[in-house]
């Protein structure tokens, strides 16, 4: 299935793009999308850096299952305010 993956802040600097479409196996999770992104952009997997995930504009755990067309976001710990 295809999902749209968006990158923000330092993660967007690492990937060099703000979004891309990834092809994932059926049954993939949000963590699987992250792994697929890290396979394309190696520095996303740097030790000690754990990006956060959102699915369809809600914070999501790694285990959250994905569906065709979902919007997955990968970003650093938030620092607003």
């Amino acid at each position: 299935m295809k999902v749209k993956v968006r990158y923000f802040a330092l993660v967007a600097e690492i990937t060099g793009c703000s979004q891309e479409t990834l092809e994932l196996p059926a049954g993939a999770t949000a963590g699987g999308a992250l792994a697929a992104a890290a396979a394309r952009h190696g520095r996303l997997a740097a030790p000690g850096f754990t990006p956060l995930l959102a699915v369809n504009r809600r914070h999501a755990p790694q285990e959250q299952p994905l569906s065709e067309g979902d919007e997955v976001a990968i970003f650093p710990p938030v620092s607003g305010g």
Partner: protein
Amino acid sequence: MEPGIICRMVTAPIDAAALAAEVARNSDGAVATFAGQVRDHHQGRPVDHLEYHAYPEMALEELRRIGADLAARHAVGRMALVHRTGTLAVGEISVLVAVAAPHRREALACCAAAIEEIKRRLPVWKKEFFADGGAPEWVFGPDEACAAAGAPHPPAREITRG
């Protein structure tokens, strides 16, 4: 969106007084506000300005979820939750919470809870530009997480230098 919960992601300067006036009804005896503003230093280094980046669609939805959660837990009237993005100079307001309520304790407790939730959940990131000529740096996590971690943000630095 819940009626009476004003949620905005903005790029223009935040007018705290206008928002406080917007939330207050005649049945409210109390208006509590919190403004976060850009400090001129961070961890001993002089800050020139900040860039705030957001996941804008999610940030607006998250503000609305935070507002709905708070309204369900606190006996308050109207509230405003506003965050600014873009380039902010020292002294400019980055985030504003305004809560009106019949009584003071509810207004104050809801205001304090709102800024905690915003810092914890809102998909916004800030990048610091220093006045000492050093390279700009992303801030990771809320202030107290950085302070608790001892050396500032080592994993992130490794990444940016790697």
